[in-house]
């Protein structure tokens, strides 16, 4: 009898064990919450075509890709980031290898997903023209530097003018240096000397100087190029973009906050007959604006520019702290959107250091951190809070 009872007890225990075995499993995964964006931001750069973003802050660098994956490179983990000079930073991006190139003086840093490489460029470039250069990325994502490598004066010319010759350097780090250089016969007269500006389209390279050259081949060491005939006065075309209609657009001067540009340069490739597309005539800005200081986005049809505006007063709710002009390159139209402040997040409009546009959001780098202004809702939120809310929603 007692044996049977034990049998029952045993089978009951078995039942209990079976029932308590209904264990569900759940995984909670960490996510990146880059506190470094809450340190002063001095650079915010977006590449809207690739939907990527780079933020340079006192605490480090944050990169964000089209799939919303973010990578934070903090100064504590990468001390080299502390050597970036905030006043001299250039950022380029290649979608071909998902790599950001950040150049600060002679320091070159590449950021790919989860990986950072840095190089100190100690190359002895041609000294007399050391301030005349440009960096650009080829379509396969390799950094190029365009500069001058030599000056030749012909004593038979009867003048004091000489010729400066252009060099194309391709970034190929090796034991002997960082660059693989091609010295060309393309020259610029000393009285017309200007900083070269370059842009790639496929294998072709356009070097915009005075005169400009269309280089169709240089990689084999043999340079095939033709001079673009000029029909009007020379205009410098800074940060050029090469659109699908073979028209080059760029700026008349190096853009920077507090140093506005007044026009966009349009340069048809077939004949160098540049035009200045004057922004203020199309966009009739408010009298108090500093002016357009940054191109946020280029397309074949339009240029989106940020127009700086600030006062030294405390901001109030819905006060305008900047404008976005969407300028029609073909028809000269202008669409104006204002950026309205949040007095708690941005008490002083002059705290804005840099801006970048991605989709419908304006990323605003300030002295106290990164803010996001959403043009759809006309609201301003801290980037980190926005990110946290998105992740935990």
């Amino acid at each position, binding site marked *: 009898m007692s044996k049977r009872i034990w049998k029952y007890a045993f*089978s009951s225990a078995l039942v209990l064990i079976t029932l308590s075995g209904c264990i569900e499993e759940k995984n909670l995964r960490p996510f990146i919450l880059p506190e470094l964006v809450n340190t002063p931001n001095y650079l915010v750069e977006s590449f809207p075509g690739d939907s990527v973003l780079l933020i340079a802050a006192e605490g480090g660098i944050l990169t964000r890709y089209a799939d919303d994956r973010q990578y934070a490179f903090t100064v504590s983990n990468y001390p080299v980031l502390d050597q970036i000079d905030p006043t001299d930073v250039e950022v380029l991006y290649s979608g071909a290898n998902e790599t950001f190139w950040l150049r600060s003086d002679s320091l070159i840093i590449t950021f790919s997903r989860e990986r950072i490489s840095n190089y100190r460029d100690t190359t002895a470039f041609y000294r007399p023209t050391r301030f005349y250069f440009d960096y650009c990325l080829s379509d396969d994502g390799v950094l190029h530097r365009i500069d001058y490598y030599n000056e030749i004066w012909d004593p038979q010319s009867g003048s004091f003018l000489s010729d400066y010759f252009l060099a194309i350097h391709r970034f190929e780090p090796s034991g002997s240096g960082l660059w693989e250089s091609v010295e060309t016969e393309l020259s610029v007269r000393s009285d017309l000397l200007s900083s070269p500006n370059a842009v790639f389209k496929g294998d072709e390279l356009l070097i915009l100087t005075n005169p400009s050259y269309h280089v169709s081949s240089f990689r084999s060491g043999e340079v095939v190029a033709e001079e673009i005939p000029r029909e009007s006065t020379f205009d410098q075309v800074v940060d050029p973009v090469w659109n699908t209609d073979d028209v080059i657009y760029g700026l008349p001067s190096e853009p920077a906050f507090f140093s506005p540009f007044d026009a966009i340069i349009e340069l048809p490739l077939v004949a160098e007959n540049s035009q200045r597309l004057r922004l203020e005539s199309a966009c009739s800005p408010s009298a108090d604006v500093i002016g357009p200081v940054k191109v946020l986005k280029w397309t074949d049809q339009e240029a989106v520019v940020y127009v700086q505006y600030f006062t030294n007063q405390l901001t109030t709710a819905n006060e305008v702290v900047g404008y976005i002009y969407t300028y029609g390159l073909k028809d000269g139209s202008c669409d104006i959107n204002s950026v309205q402040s949040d007095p708690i*997040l941005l008490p002083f409009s002059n705290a804005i250091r840099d801006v970048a546009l991605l989709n419908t959001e304006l990323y605003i780098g300030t002295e106290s951190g990164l803010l996001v202004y959403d043009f759809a809702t006309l609201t301003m939120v801290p980037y980190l809070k926005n990110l946290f809310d998105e992740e935990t929603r």
Partner: protein
Amino acid sequence: MRPFVHIIRLLLILGSALPFTTHAQKETVLGLEGDWYVFSLKHFKSSFRHELGLSMFSHFYRSPDQAIHYEVDDGIAYPQPVYNRGFGLMSLHYEPRFRLIEYRNWASLSLDVPLVWSLSLVDLTTEDGFRYSADTVSTAAFNAGIFAVERETGLGLGHLEAGAMLSINLWQGATYENTFPLGLSIGAGVHRMFAPVQMNFIAGYERVEYQEFTAWWTPVSRLSLHYRGVVLSYTIGVNPTLVYYESLNSKRAVYTNTYNRFSLSLRIGR
């Protein structure tokens, strides 16, 4: 819906255990005529029994994970489950049991309604002891690097449970007539938990702020051994969740939605 699935599973499993009860056993142990009886209010006295029970330091629960706490370190947010957990110093329970179906005089299927009051220490916490607060972090604080608000003290005292269980009862206590001294019950059902009963008013915690964390359902099963009028029971949560998470680069795991209670009860009447 899930508790009912468990009940059906329980019944199926119990069904497979019945062959242990042989015909010979029924006759030798009980020696009575076979028959089926269904619950009837006319014979309420014979279809009803109740128990009074006590648990001392043997009553623990954790709710399902009810919130997530984010531990932020070096630019990474590590989510951790937050659950309502209670430790019963002393729990009293009263349990009416309605015999729905009886088989002869030695087996029955009953509907049990356990009602539990527990003097317990209740908190809303993570495995590492972070006391989760329903207060939200202000934007200014968030920007200053404060990502969560922590309470200073426990959430409150005491908890209540009300449950519904279906039990299969054998011998002692299974029917009104049975006089065999030993008995066994196996049951499964759900408990509705309410915790805490008393919010920590000294710290000023308001129930309305923590409403979403103070009540939940938990599926349980129970094994009871009867000796005459004394019942020893162990109740266990049958649908725990094993939550894997990372904490500052170490892999961790914690069970939530658990329930454990040993209790000693005295049957009132037969």
